[in-house]
């Protein structure tokens, strides 16, 4: 376990920004933090990166305790952060931006040279190494900020909205790079609004709205909220069919003309008996479709419930 948070809470005066967060992140895992604006995503990252204090609860990064003075520097040594504002030095070149951070992390000149070349090449910025960062596009700046966070080969990488405000092509480059890092088994904590991004990249996702609303794999979250629906289109829906289906104690059966919609938990197990019942009652099935709820459904339902 690389990140372990127990009842983590942060209050700013009377405002509770984050309440009772309990979660863990395993080594090599890409963990997504989903939530609306003001949900406490950035506050959580800042607490875990020892940038702001916690009000209560505990959190550990690797073997170090968040909030303990003696451990703060050790934690900051093994993490890399890409904040929501990239915060590059616009007057310095791409190379100098990375070199400065390499020095701050006590990397030797040889290590700095090697890592700078490696990451700038991976991100397609090597040819621009001597160009001032201020002249870069948003996408290039974001990529440079990611390279900066990786310059010291951190154990955990925190990414706060890494693709926000990027054009689709730049977003894809950044996402692909994160997937590359995932292949290298880097532990990544990803704050994002982008459900599609979270679904594609993350091993597990936590949905946050001050409190933790849900946590699990993208697939588990999809099904946990609404389950699935079997939509069965018949030639004709008769009373005999409806009576027979009602005996199966189905969760939610609705009829719209010749179409029946039934809530199911596991369609592979439940659909055969439903169809068998329909056949026995003299029904003729034209088509069967299984509808699943999406991560978006799950997210919106949980966030609305929290309101």
């Amino acid at each position, binding site marked *: 376990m690389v990140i372990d948070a127990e009842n983590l809470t942060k209050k700013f005066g009377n405002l509770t920004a984050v309440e009772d967060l309990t979660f863990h992140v395993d080594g090599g895992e890409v963990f997504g933090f989903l939530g609306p604006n003001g949900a406490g995503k950035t506050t959580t990252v800042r607490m875990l990166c020892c940038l*702001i204090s916690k009000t209560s609860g505990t959190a550990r990064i690797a073997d170090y305790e968040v909030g303990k003075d003696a451990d703060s520097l050790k934690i*900051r*040594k093994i993490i890399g952060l890409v*904040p929501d504002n990239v*915060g590059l*030095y616009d*007057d*310095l070149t791409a190379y100098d931006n990375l070199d400065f951070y390499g020095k701050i992390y006590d990397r030797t000149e040889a290590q700095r040279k090697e890592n700078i070349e490696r990451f700038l090449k991976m991100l397609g910025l090597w040819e621009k190494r001597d160009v001032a960062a201020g002249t870069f596009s948003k996408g290039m700046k974001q990529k440079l900020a990611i390279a900066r966070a990786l310059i010291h080969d951190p154990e955990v990488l925190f990414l706060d909205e890494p693709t926000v405000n990027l054009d689709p092509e730049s977003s894809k480059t950044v996402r692909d790079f994160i997937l590359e890092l995932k292949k290298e088994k880097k532990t990544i904590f990803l704050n994002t609004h982008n459900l599609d991004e979270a679904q594609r990249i993350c091993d597990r996702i936590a949905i946050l709205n001050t409190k933790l609303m849900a946590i699990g794999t993208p697939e588990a979250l999809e099904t946990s909220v609404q389950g699935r629906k079997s939509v069965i289109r018949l030639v004709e829906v008769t009373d005999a069919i409806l009576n027979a289906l009602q005996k199966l104690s189905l969760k939610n059966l609705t009829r719209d003309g010749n179409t029946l919609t039934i809530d199911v938990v596991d369609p592979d197990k439940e659909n055969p008996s439903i169809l068998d019942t329909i056949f026995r009652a003299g029904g003729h099935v034209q088509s069967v479709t299984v509808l699943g709820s999406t991560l978006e459904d799950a997210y919106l339902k949980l966030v609305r419930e929290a309101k």
Partner: protein
Amino acid sequence: MRLSKSWIIASKDFKIFFKKKNIIYSILVVPLIISFLFPALIEFELGKNGGNGIPAAELPILLPAFTFFYLILAGMVPTTIASYSLVGEKVEKSLEPLLATPTTDSEILLGKGIAAFIPPIGAILGGATIFMILMDVVTHGTLGYYFFPNWNAAIVLFLMVPLAIIMSVEWNVIVSARVSDVRVAQQIGILLMLPFAGIYVAGELDLIQLGITSNLLIIAGILLVVDLLLLYVARATFRREEILTKWK
């Protein structure tokens, strides 16, 4: 505290300053103008009335007052560089990634302090050296001896000026926490030259004898006390959580 970390931060700031010509000019121009202007004025005045424009007895009173101008500059010159160093980072949002590195608040603050201290002290001492050499050249004929260097000038330049620059840097740290525009920071930061200008005017009005060594040492002592008080406030202002959650 690891000085090496502070030096890395300061070196990075120097690199940025050298790319910004307006910062270089703002540090160099005024000390250089004063360094050439005052000797030129004295030369001009001495030349009046057939070379008797300023009586020799008045020069030892006049020249220390000129030296005191460098104290006023010490309150003014660091403002541009200190406000850029802090508010500039705030505007570029580059403080958060820096704060996420294994550096302490004190190391970052010291780094910023070094970056804002070295160029102004270099410019002021460089300018003062030119001033003293030129003034000696100009006044030697009238005085019959070289007025500079002397102990009082040494106290002003090597004790009071560094203390005043430190005060200016600390003041700018405090100001930077409350403004988010470099120009506003500079306008408020430059107010620090007023007390030094006040001391100069008090000297001109004979309220303080600026040519007396003990008076200079008392003023230096006051500067030291104020420096320590401002350091306490600046240190309390420059904390990670304050910067990320309360700096406007």
